[in-house]
């Protein structure tokens, strides 16, 4: 039993943290959000580094690493709230790689892996990366289909999260014939990983702020009401992280446990992130409610990612019935 990252995974994590701190500081996120345009320089650089193809098989032009490596990258992108259409592309690639047929893989994966093509993923009412995507994976009623941009009717949505593009999607496309449930579970692990990064950033920013900000002559973080809120944020962040790492690991190493692991990640990560980022706003006080402070980007990203992940309640109900079924069997 070992939850630790390998040396390579640690290197990926450290490199991503450093690169994003430099290329995608909050000022850049704000610039992109306020202008309504994604950070193109960042996207180009991530593509040059091969990040979009990290989990795509080598024979389709990717790096052939796994769901854990993808989760590591997404956690760091979430930590940075990077304004880049990365998530839609990797989710589309993961779905096509896992549930697509050979033709679909050959047609779409090399472009998604190199970053030449942009991908989108989601349901008809909300798909991340849909505006501007070359290829879209649309999930509806437990089935999934892949659409070329020309076959998709995309309506861009002005969501509360202006750091990234989302849209409504309609269109026929062709079904992904393989294991769609498994593909969706892999997607859930990836989205949850981004949420864990969002949580961690919200916690770090809050701890830094309440250690600095003084009232009544002492740092507000010395008040237990504030300190205990921060402790609660850590509890939820670490809980979501435990479930998410389990799901990412199961995606690669224990597919028979993936359904339950992904259920845990779905149930834990969305709720944790909306609560932790909401708590970050509260702990920042009046400043936290201003446009000028950056914590709101995290709260907004958390809301959209949680919506993509599906409601926590749905996941919890499914898990209770899954456990009961397992016991009866």
């Amino acid at each position, binding site marked *: *039993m*070992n*939850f*630790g*990252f*390998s040396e390579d*995974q640690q290197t990926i994590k450290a490199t991503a943290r450093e690169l994003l701190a430099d290329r995608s500081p909050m000022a850049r996120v704000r610039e992109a959000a306020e202008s309504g345009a994604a950070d193109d320089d960042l996207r180009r650089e991530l593509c040059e580094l091969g990040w979009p193809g990290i989990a795509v098989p080598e024979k389709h032009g990717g790096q052939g690493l796994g769901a*854990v490596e993808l989760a590591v990258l997404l956690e760091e992108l979430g930590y940075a709230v990077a304004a880049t259409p990365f998530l839609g592309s990797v989710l589309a690639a993961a779905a096509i790689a896992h549930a697509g047929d050979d033709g679909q893989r050959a047609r779409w994966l090399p472009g998604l892996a190199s970053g030449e093509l942009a991908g989108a993923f989601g349901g008809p009412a909300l798909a991340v990366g849909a505006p501007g995507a070359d290829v879209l994976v649309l999930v509806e009623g437990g089935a999934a289909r892949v659409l070329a941009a020309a076959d998709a009717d995309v309506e861009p949505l002005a969501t509360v999260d202006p750091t990234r593009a989302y849209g409504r999607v309609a269109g026929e496309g062709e079904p992904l014939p393989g294991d769609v449930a498994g593909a969706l579970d892999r997607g859930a692990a990836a989205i949850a990983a981004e949420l864990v990064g969002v949580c961690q950033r919200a*916690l770090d920013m809050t*701890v830094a702020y*309440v*250690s600095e900000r003084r009232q009544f002559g*002492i*740092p507000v*973080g*010395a*008040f*237990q009401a504030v*300190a*205990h809120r*921060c*402790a*609660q944020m*850590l*509890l939820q962040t*670490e*809980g979501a*992280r*435990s*479930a998410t*790492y*389990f799901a990412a*690991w*199961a995606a690669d*190493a*224990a597919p028979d446990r993936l359904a339950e692991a992904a259920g*845990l990640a779905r*149930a*834990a990560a969305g709720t944790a992130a909306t609560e932790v980022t909401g708590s970050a706003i509260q702990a920042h006080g009046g400043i936290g409610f201003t446009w000028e402070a950056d914590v709101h980007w995290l709260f907004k990203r958390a809301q959209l990612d949680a919506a993509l992940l599906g409601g926590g*309640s749905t*996941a*919890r*109900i*499914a*898990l*209770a*019935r899954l*456990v*009961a079924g397992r*016991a*009866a069997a």
Partner: protein
Amino acid sequence: MDLTFSERELAFRDELRAWLAANDPGPEPAEERAHYAWRRDFQRRLYEGGWAAVHWPPEHGGRGATLTESAIFFEELGRARAPLPANVLGILLGGPTLMVWGTDAQKDRFLGPILSGEEIWCQGFSEPDAGSDLAALKTRAVPDGDGWRVTGQKVWTSGAQYSKWCMLVARTDTEAAKHKGLTYFLMDMEQDAVQVRPLRQITGESEFNELFIEDAWIAGDCLVGGVGNGWKVALTTLMNERAGLAFFLQVRLRRMLDDLIDEAAARGLLEDDVVADRLGALHVKAEILRLTAYRGLTAIERYGQPGPEGSLTKWMWSDANQELAQVAADVLGPEALLQGTRWGYELMRARGNSIEGGTTEILKNIVAERVLGLPRAGRA
């Protein structure tokens, strides 16, 4: 990352499972004294089978188990519906503290009887005015000939009525700063100067006691870790308190939750989305607790010290266990509110979970100060 057990760990688990299958502890008695006898008898069998303290080094009668093997031990114990050994405080706290701070003579004298359960240990730390603020304790020890005389009062002493030895922290220097004037002793409970009075809990039973100590005798060779070093020695004990138990409690929670889910399913209640949601939320908490406890072991094995996870699991467990008992009461209705039933008992007993072994409020302070590095909360 590899969330499976190694071959060695699986072999350890299988050997233990086979032993537990052949040594079924039998049903858990409801009556308090019978319950204690059940735990004492089971410890005897663990001892004879070489399983009493798997984490102790072989030279002291253990198996030199790794942290993960020790976690497996407690998980399997819980899974087999076996009790914690009667001398759990001696095995988890007293023995390991002596291995760090004790003299060779103390190790020779005390470790064997801890393991066999011949001598039961209790923990005399808390006092009426020194609970969470342990260093405020007032029990006084003064030198007398080749030993010490102790006077004071202790409280929340689990198992004192069965104990031969008490891990006692007392003040030996009233002039020194709060944390510095303390010394760690082993006090013989079998003397008239030590009176044990049971405290009746909200469950009606008496797991805890008050100790009234009036000029009790402690021999000079029953002092551990040196005069004035009691705070440091006590911390060793407290550090050990939270490690192994988490896995036993986690499995106990899992087992009770599985029973509740089965019961709800049998009554068709899982078709109700509200009930399913609440049970699903408990399932998530139980699984996250287990995963986080194992992440904590990875942190210790890799970096030699506990990560943030270690501070979180006790808090997670007490929250989840209280919620479980409440959901059971809400879902099963009046029959879960009857005295002498498992859920009726658990509903009361679980309220202690967020107080015993460190209140949730203190755990949050610890997390805020030591894990997050927040400024220390204001203290008078």
